[in-house]
């Protein structure tokens, strides 16, 4: 298949794919590969620098940093996938409806997109999370609710051109319902770009979650997340660099992996976009 050959020829995309696969595997296998219990407190091994027993050191409660990063990966990936799932579902439905029906429906939905894009997303997310209680579920929902606009625009644009095609006319003359035409006939043809934007969205959802957790209104301790590990890193910045360095590197690598993979897939799907 052309798609796979083009994807595998792109070294950066392959690197992204490898990073993503390794991280996924590490998160799924966390109970088996983490050298220590991530919650186990050791008062006699507090703030140990990276060494043979603790490759990435221990934190202020003597917990193994490597184990906490491996378990924290589960949280980041969970937030990334669920938030993007929500955003994609909303974006696809609204974008499809706007593009297919046009007219005032389209106008209304697109104005809503414009309005949502005006809000500094981080302000909106902070406000909502604070009004509700900070919890991982609230965060996933709120990130999802504030990041669907790009997908909606994308799907709408695809629908605007696809709905004029002959196969849509054929489906309509056979008596297919609008819902059937939208979801069964047109949508599968528009899924490529949606898939790409979902993969890119995972990276930014993970970044948002880590920032919220860093500020103390995201994932709450003792559940380890890369963001709340960095909060501890900030408190011990002067004496324990490893508490800040490694969780941040984990975030960077993960987001980098998804972005490289996402852009690689985009180029492979549509080589004309490749510059």
């Amino acid at each position, binding site marked *: 298949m052309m798609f796979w050959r083009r994807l595998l020829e792109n070294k950066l995309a392959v690197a992204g794919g490898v990073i993503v696969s390794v991280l996924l595997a590490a998160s799924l296998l966390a109970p088996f590969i983490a050298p220590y219990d991530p919650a186990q407190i050791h008062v006699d091994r507090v703030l140990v620098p990276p060494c043979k027993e603790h490759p990435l050191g221990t934190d202020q409660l003597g917990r193994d940093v490597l184990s906490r990063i491996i378990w924290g990966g589960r949280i980041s990936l969970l937030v990334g996938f669920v938030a993007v799932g929500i955003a994609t579902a909303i974006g696809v439905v609204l974008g499809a409806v706007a593009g297919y029906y046009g007219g005032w429906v389209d106008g209304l939905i697109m104005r809503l997109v414009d309005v949502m894009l005006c809000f500094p997303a981080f*302000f909106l997310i902070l406000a909502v999370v604070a009004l509700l209680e900070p919890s991982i579920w609230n965060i996933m929902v709120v990130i999802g609710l504030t990041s669907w606009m790009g997908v909606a625009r994308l799907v709408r644009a695809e629908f605007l051109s696809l709905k004029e095609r002959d196969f849509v006319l054929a489906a309509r003359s056979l008596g297919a319902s609008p819902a059937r035409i939208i979801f069964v006939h047109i949508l599968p043809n528009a899924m490529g770009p949606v898939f790409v934007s979902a993969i890119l969205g995972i990276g930014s959802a993970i970044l948002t979650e880590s920032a919220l957790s860093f500020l103390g209104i995201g994932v709450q301790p003792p559940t380890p997340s890369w963001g709340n590990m960095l909060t501890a890193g900030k408190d011990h910045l002067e004496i324990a660099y490893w508490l800040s360095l490694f969780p941040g590197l984990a975030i960077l690598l993960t987001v980098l992996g998804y972005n490289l993979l996402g852009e690689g897939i985009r180029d492979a799907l549509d080589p004309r976009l490749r510059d």
Partner: protein
Amino acid sequence: MARYLFRRLLTMVPLLLGITMISFAVIHLAPGEPTGLQAEFNPKITKEARERLRAYYGLDKPLHIQYLLWLKRVATLDLGRSFSPDRRPVSEKILERLPITVTINLLSMLLIILVAIPIGVYCATHQGSFGDRALTVFVFVGYATPTFWLALLLMLLFGVKLGWLPISGIRSLVGYEAMGPLEKAIDMGRHLLLPVLVSAFGGLAGLSRYMRTSLLEVIRQDYITAARAKGLPEGKVIYKHALRNALLPVITILGLSVPGLIGGSVIFETIFSIPGMGQLFFYSVMARDYPVVMGMLVIGAVLTLVGNLLADLAYAWADPRIRVG
């Protein structure tokens, strides 16, 4: 141009209405009512403050009336009074913090433009070279770097290890008053250097990538081939003919980056203890100071709207097809 401006301002009206509607909806997200359940458990809110909020939103009236009442006050910039012990008007609290945030964001935007555009041009004119590929990887890494983490690392390096730069506040706590004007400026500059760098970093990656793509697209156009065919030197082709057109979409991207910059100010202002809008927002969120939170939501969105307007005006000024058409 006047007609364009008028048309453009007209399109802002429904957006403003939408902004206030969503802000209003967020207020009513609080379980029960904004003065209800959560306020009961919040020792920072006195009974009197709760009553005041009830009166402010007219909570005994139907929802649409509540919205209209609130809208009427917001239109006159009356955003209510803060729940915090000082009980000051929200608009006053926000306005005194606006300049510092806007200054930092303008400085970082300037930095983004000055660095990202040359990088983008270099990559586009040296497509596929080692430098282009190295910068592309750098851009991807920049995209993926959490800004708060970068802030921590820079604080660690320049503040703690090397001791070159201060790591919090916007001026020295001791001895600032005794300094001369030049020393004061240098002092503030040293305090602002890291925050500006950090807030520029994310945008840098995005804009340089965008500049590269935009210029590559323009270079493929027929008029560039024509310019080359008539024997113009390559430098002139790129900088005089191609760059101008390639910069147009970049203006729009700059406008679109405003909400990200404002939202990002929460992070770097909290880390660097800078008394700006972002820090106020964060403190207010933590203290459940609803009037301030809501006021800032509206003002943040309006600032974005203004940023987009400025970008569109710049675009129209640069591209006659827009302002005439």
